[in-house]
């Protein structure tokens, strides 16, 4: 077994402390009784109560959730198609443009994406609201889905698909019965990624939302721009908690499914 040298131990400890201490502080002060988030004045859960009585936050949370579910679902379908095209379709006219359009949104500054989509929506006369945010989020998150899915497709044994075709499957049946179950973990993590990207997005949503469709990040941003507030700490704690449960849950299930698959494969060989 390898042992960590003192240097590596120190860099890991400091690195993870740097990553986690701000969040631990944030969570701790959400239970502060006082209004200040820098002076501790006793334990209290009153900010959580305030939060759940705040209609504006609840409305915004509902809009955000709707947008995230819709955009991540469409993005998963489109992104999986795009990944399939990138990995399997070989050469076709406009392939370079296509791969450029897949990679560019990953690194495009959000202000540019947001501005350009808003100008499009105004040019075609589409009223800003939930629909426009969904369209905007779908567009950038499908590219993330496609990167996640294509990395799985690359390692996937194409002869399985060919066997299905030889045995009389149509192309779509081969995809549904053979390819999709195998790439499913990547598709699911692509969906989760798209979902969190949408939940999280402030800049693009600010450009593409209308007055009746304020999302949670927009609300949070306008609240924290001026200063810190314990209510936002409480809201952040809830969001961090949900994400932590989600990520740990997802990694446990994927570990279990990998173990199960290995077992199945072994039994199949025997």
């Amino acid at each position, binding site marked *: 077994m*390898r042992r960590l040298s003192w240097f*590596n*131990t120190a*860099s*890991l400890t400091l*690195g*993870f402390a740097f*990553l*986690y201490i*701000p*969040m631990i*502080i*944030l969570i701790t002060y959400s239970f502060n009784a006082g209004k200040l*988030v*820098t002076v501790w004045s006793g334990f209290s859960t009153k900010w959580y109560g305030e939060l759940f009585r705040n209609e504006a936050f609840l409305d915004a949370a509902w809009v955000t959730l709707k947008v995230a579910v819709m955009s991540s679902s469409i993005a998963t379908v489109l*992104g999986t*198609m*795009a990944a399939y*095209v990138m990995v399997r379709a070989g050469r*076709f006219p406009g392939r370079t443009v*296509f*791969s*450029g*359009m897949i*990679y*560019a*949104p990953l*690194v*495009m*500054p*959000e*202000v*540019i994406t947001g*501005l*350009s*989509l808003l100008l*499009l929506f105004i*040019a075609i006369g589409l009223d800003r609201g939930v629909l426009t945010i969904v369209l*905007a989020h*779908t*567009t950038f998150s499908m590219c993330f889905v*496609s990167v996640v899915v294509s990395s799985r497709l*690359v390692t996937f044994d194409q002869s399985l698909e060919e066997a299905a075709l030889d045995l009389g499957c149509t192309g779509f049946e081969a995809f549904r019965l053979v390819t999709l179950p195998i790439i499913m973990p990547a598709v699911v993590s692509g969906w989760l990624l798209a979902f*969190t990207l949408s939940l*999280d997005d*402030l*800049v693009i949503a*600010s450009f593409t939302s209308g007055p009746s469709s304020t999302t949670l*990040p927009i609300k949070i*941003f306008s609240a*924290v*721009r001026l200063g*810190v507030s314990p209510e936002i700490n409480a809201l*952040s704690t809830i*969001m*961090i908690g949900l*994400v*932590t449960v989600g*990520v740990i849950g997802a990694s446990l299930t994927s*570990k279990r499914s990998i173990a199960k698959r290995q077992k199945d494969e072994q039994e199949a060989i025997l």
Partner: protein
Amino acid sequence: MKRFGLISVPYLWLLALFLVPFLIVLKISLSDTALAIPPYTPTLDISQGWEGIKAWWIALDLENYFWLASDDLYWKAYLSSLKIAIISTILTLMVGYPIAYGMSRAPDEWRPTLMMLIILPFWTSFLIRVYSWKAILSNEGLLNQLLMYLGVIQEPLVILNTNLAVYIGIVYTYLPFMVLPIYSALERLDESLLEAAEDLGCSRLKAFWLVTMPLSKQGIIAGSFLVFIPAMGEFVIPALLGGSKTLMIGKVLWEEFFSNRDWPVASAVAVVLLLLLIIPIVLFQRNEEKQREAEK
């Protein structure tokens, strides 16, 4: 035919919602500001036929770009974004490399947990992670409280609302983007190469410089682009942690659009920013494709 359908759906989606919007930005950047809805002229009036199109085309000009070039606010904002992005990329690399290195040296059974600990913050809201530094860095914040308690300083340090706070914010939020590609490069590294270097008389430090660093080059390049490119156009971090003196082009664009409602100038700012970023974006894409080829 089916292949055509499979290609065309995502293709057309991206054309309509990614490429066409840029052409519109480009067009509006060549238009004039007007007190109207939408607040720019000329608007294309197809109903007037060819004459309408001709009038529209003639009215487009580079005026907004001359305006950008003549006003030093924009120059300074581009340069200062460039400076902030470069410095914070270097800082992120300096913080991220040892973490990635430590992870790649850790015992096998720790690795999935370490990996999850790096990825977890990435899934948590960006906005919340930036916000969490406000309570730490402010004048009466926890960092100043700690340093004064320890007697390191007598007067509170002014960190919040300065460029230093922006650097901290960028390093903090973009750290996973730097650590992950470097880690995946280091993880593949064949350790017998290091042993060979040591057998041939290299010190451990020299072996690191001559073997480990060059072999993790692609990870460093990928990580640096993933930090540099979005940092260049960053809006949230300067808006929440930076001060009135922090000039970043993303913030200028935002204010030009939302506060001044000057859409043509905001569009011109976006076009110039994109031109500045095209080189790094293309280099990044090349690097990704090269890596993909190598993995095949």
